[in-house]
């Protein structure tokens, strides 16, 4: 929003506040993802429980952002660009909240996994999670800088994560075929992998919204 300053400073500040809150929420969620994977790799149940407990704060923030957006819609009756921004913010907020829930889901699986011996060292999964985390960061950066190129980069990245997910799936399949005792653990890891894959889908959704906000064109179903 650099080029076009609004005449009302108050209005300007309110719009900025929405951006700030989204960034704040996104940063917390990035941390939740990183920590859930850390809990998995380091077999740290305390960390997993911490992430699960922290979700209340994320939900609260999500609610606050939605309130702010609705207030803006009702009181300021934004038009054109600002309207697009606020609708985008509402959607991004939704995506972020879902991602937050997924971090919790991963942690729940981690708690179960930790009760059994480690199946194999995790290599692709942390990499995948790191890519998904970076996608969230980049998509929010794209929002701040209104950078369509960066948003498109995020959208392309989704495929890398999909491929990694499939690779993990195939690998675990071999484990399960070799030794039926690994089936339970393999399935849990698969679910985690699938969850990470869905996190990246949500990150892509955020990037889609950024492209829509900047260009006014919807790219969601391309």
């Amino acid at each position, binding site marked *: 929003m*650099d080029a076009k300053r609004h005449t009302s400073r108050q209005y300007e500040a309110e719009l900025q506040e929405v*951006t*700030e809150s989204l960034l704040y929420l996104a940063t917390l969620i990035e*941390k939740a993802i990183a920590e859930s994977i850390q809990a998995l790799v380091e077999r740290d149940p305390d960390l997993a429980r911490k992430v699960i407990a922290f979700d209340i704060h994320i939900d609260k923030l999500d609610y606050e952002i939605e309130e702010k957006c609705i207030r803006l819609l009702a009181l300021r009756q934004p038009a054109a660009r600002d309207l697009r921004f606020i609708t985008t913010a509402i959607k991004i907020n939704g995506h972020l909240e879902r991602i937050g829930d997924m971090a919790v889901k991963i942690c729940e699986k981690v708690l179960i996994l930790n009760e059994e011996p480690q199946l194999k*060292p995790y*290599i692709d999964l942390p990499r995948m999670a*790191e890519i998904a985390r970076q996608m969230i960061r980049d998509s929010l*950066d794209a929002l701040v800088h209104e950078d369509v190129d960066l948003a498109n980069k995020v959208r392309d990245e989704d495929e890398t994560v999909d491929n990694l997910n499939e690779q993990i799936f195939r690998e675990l399949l071999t484990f399960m075929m070799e030794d039926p005792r690994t089936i339970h653990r393999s399935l849990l890891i698969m679910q985690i992998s699938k969850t990470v894959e869905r996190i990246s889908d949500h990150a892509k959704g955020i990037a889609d919204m950024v492209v829509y906000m900047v260009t006014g064109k919807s790219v969601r179903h391309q």
Partner: protein
Amino acid sequence: MKSRLFYKIFASYLILVVLVIAVMEFYLIPKIHETVTTGITEKMIANGRIMALMPRGDMIGEIRELASRSEARVTIIDAAGKVLMDSQSSEQQMDTHLNRSEIQEARIKGQGISQRYSRTLQADMLYVAVAIGDREHIKGYVRLARSLANVSDSIEHIYRIIYLTLFLISLPSLLLAFWFARNITAPIRRMAAFTGQLRAGQRPAPMLMDSEDELAQLAQDINHILEEQDGKVRLAQEEKSKLEAAFASMVEGALTLDRDNRIDQFNRSLRKMIGKRYEDILGKTPMEAFRSVSLQDALLRFRESSQPVLEEIVLGDDENPRVLDVNITAIQGFPGEEPKILMMFHNVTRLKQLERMRMDFVANVTHEIRTPLTAIIGFVETLQQGAINDQIQAGKFLQTINDNAQRLNRLVDDLLTLSNIELGETKLHFTDIAVAEVVAEALKTIQPRLTAKKLQTETDIAADTPAIRADQDKMLQILLNILDNAVKFTPEEGMIRVKAAPANSGLVAIRIIDTGIGIPKNEIPRLGERFYRVEKTRSRDLGGTGLGLSIVKHLMLAHGGQMEIESNPGYGTTISLYFPSSIPGTESLNQP
């Protein structure tokens, strides 16, 4: 273009002149007209009275005589209005004059005046009538008429004189006004041009005024103020550039926020700390630029308390974290303005690392020492409690005690070696060593363990590999430590390759490549730390002291070489050792 001030002064003079003319036109001239007309009228009335007093009998004749000699027209009218005589017209043609206003007036007051346009003579006429006889018995009227045409002429003549005079007065006075206005405005215009140049950012030469009036004083004052201003500006500039230089070259990152919470100033150190482009920081809010929740919280705390806030924030990802100490303070601007916010960032990543290494070291050292000690104490106690009598058991226990004592001994040896290397107390005896020989010796030493794990080895020493300058024993220790790790972390039936080849800048590269479990990328930088273990439990089970790579790292440094580690988790690790070669000619330089 003349200045507005000129027009103002000139216009006021012009208005003054016009006002004088207007007063004449509207007051003086009508007054003159009135005075002249009144004089004529009075004269005519006097004449009329004289005529009215003439003896009756030859009145008409006498009056006709008088009238012919004067320019006035004389009419005699009887009481009934019948014209008895008229000096300019035939009496018979004239109708009754009783209804004329001057006659009516004379009938009541004894005399009457009227001024009107005469159709007969086609001119403005002044009529004066005087009654004959006393008021009760009016016998008739004498009426005198006079054209006002020549009166108007004379009045016009006066007008012309007046207008000429006015013109003669106004012309020089306007010229005077013009000159005066110009003279006053000229220096003011010069001043305006001067200040205009100042405003445009130019610096004109000081103003010089040739007069000595208030304007000259003003010009002098302006010159003086400017001179003082110059001094102050220069001083401020110097201060500013000093501050800017300090700000820019500070090791600490610094930024200031404007009152919209946007970054309006920052230095290079800060940009390096965040690792973003210039335009991605300027004008952004701290949240946008840093993406740090703890920073945002600290900022909020500062805004609420207005007390300086100190906070530690972590930027970057897990692989490359940057720990920054942030100090948030207010900087007071001009009085009444909202204070700006200054944030200072101090990079404490290195300090944090050292702190963690120290803490890890203490924790590790105690752990490493306690483990064998616990075993020793445990078995000694068992022996004391009677196991000493059981020959077979006692032998086993003593063996275990010996093993653990040996392990303690190894640990202390390693620690000593390491501290000696670090303190520089280890004397290195440099000789020329053939790489192939020392590699062969190392492999021979470790052969039993290779066989036990069914590991294959492969040696590939390039033919042009020069001899290296190293301490024979330490060189062997380096190779053994690395090969030991390779053996430990390579699963059975794996492969260990040793390659050697010349590298850049007179170095020889020796690479030990295994097909082991590998090392995650983010652990690699910490491998040289004492007791650092990638997986906390496993390598200890394998019997290491946790000091092997530490020793290698420091020995390599002591040799003037270096160690590089590359790894692909799940596929293997490559450790590259770069030794200085002993190329003839450089030898004498290195060894005096």
